[in-house]
């Protein structure tokens, strides 16, 4: 499964106009979107999720292909957005898992209710899915607690479980670990990696933190001022990442 993104989105900002123009392919596995604040990282995720409509472009999900030409894989692709063909699937139709920066857990629901919120229907299948994902992310013990009653790490795990329980075709992570200490972060990343071994889906992982990205990322997309300036496998990508302003040093 490969996510193919080509989009343009312009914003009016105080200093002038900000234009995001990004084109990249993200095959199964974790692609890190790395860059300083205001580079347009979250905007890319929101466009892929369908929460923001690009001015123009094309976002498609398809089978793996050796060719770089987006058009060549069109037959196998499911188009999520195509400005030329006026296709714009709603977020509900896209089957995407999204973990927001501040998690966006529903505060009036328990952890279990948060997790089962997106699963259609009732019955044993639903229960099995919830139990399975809660065990994998070690949150069974907080099932009956509301987000305000559990720790930051547990909230993170619940948010991941909620995003993954619906078996999404793409996973979007918007700096979800930024508020955690390193040990906890690596622990959660290990659980996530295990899950991704079972489901080979494209993951777009936005972060400022090199240690996080190194622990999870397989390739890096360097984003600066709305443009992808480099696209490489993790080790090579870091050499360029270091030179970007606003990028945090390794911890």
């Amino acid at each position, binding site marked *: 499964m490969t996510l193919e993104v080509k989009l343009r989105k312009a914003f009016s900002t105080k200093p002038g106009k900000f234009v995001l123009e990004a084109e990249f392919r993200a095959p199964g596995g974790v692609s890190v979107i790395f860059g300083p604040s205001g580079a347009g990282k979250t905007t890319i995720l929101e466009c892929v999720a369908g*929460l923001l409509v690009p001015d123009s472009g094309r976002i498609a999900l398809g089978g793996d292909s050796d060719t770089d030409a987006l058009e060549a894989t069109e037959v196998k692709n499911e188009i999520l957005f195509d400005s030329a063909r006026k296709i714009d699937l709603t977020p*509900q139709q896209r089957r995407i898992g999204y973990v*927001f920066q501040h998690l966006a857990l529903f505060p009036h629901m328990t952890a279990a209710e948060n997790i089962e919120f*997106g699963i259609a229907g009732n019955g044993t299948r639903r229960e099995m899915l919830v139990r399975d994902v809660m065990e994998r992310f070690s949150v069974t013990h907080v099932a009956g607690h509301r987000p*305000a009653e559990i720790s930051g790490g547990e909230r993170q795990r619940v948010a991941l479980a909620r995003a993954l329980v619906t078996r999404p075709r793409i996973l979007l992570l918007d700096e979800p670990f930024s508020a955690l200490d390193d040990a906890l972060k690596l622990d959660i990343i290990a659980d996530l990696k295990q899950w991704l071994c079972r489901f080979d889906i494209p993951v777009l992982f936005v972060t400022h933190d090199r240690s996080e990205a190194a622990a999870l990322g397989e390739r890096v997309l360097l984003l600066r001022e709305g443009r992808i300036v480099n696209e490489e496998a993790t080790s090579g990508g870091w050499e360029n990442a270091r030179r970007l302003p606003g990028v945090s040093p390794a911890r």
Partner: protein
Amino acid sequence: MNWQAFTLTAELATLTSLILLVLGVPVALWVAFSRQRWKFLLEALVAMPLVLPPTVLGFYLLVAFGSGTVLGRWYQRVAGSTLAFTFRGLVVASVVYSLPFAVQPMAAAFRGVDQKLIDAARTLGVTKRTIYRRIVVPLAWPGMITGMVLSFAHTVGEFGVVLMVGGNIPGATRTLSIDIYDQVQGLNYASANQTALVLLIFSYFLLCLLYGLNRRALLWGSR
């Protein structure tokens, strides 16, 4: 104290606020989330009773209830009588008159629900209806209670519309505010004072309840 007027007023205010809960929630959801260009036209219509003199509203409702309109004729055919100068007519008039007092706090509360929560629900594949039912409405409960309490209090205190649409029929349309007016007209100030004092204390109690609930909701929200 005229207990008949007291009971009638309580019945009228309770019915009105319950009807406004049922009617007001969908209207407020639409006002809060619709992106229609012409939305402002309906918003202005809902808010009209805030600025319109009650006698003007009452006059048009009286005309609408009469046999000269489609609505009036339809009701007479179905119910066998007119809505004017009846308790049912008062309920309809109170619902229209108090609509903005219910819809505006509800719409404000719905708009105040964190957009990220709505976005998260959308990415989880659920329908708009489910998002409203399970996320927006439960998180906006303080606004809904505010809307109900305000419409209840507003109905208790309404005068002009009641007089125009209901007249002053004991046991049918004579509410507490009309009763006070009657007492003053008859120079019976002691009795008017007694009823007015009850309404004064009642209004203060309701507002205390409202502010207390909002304070609790703020504390709950910040946990």
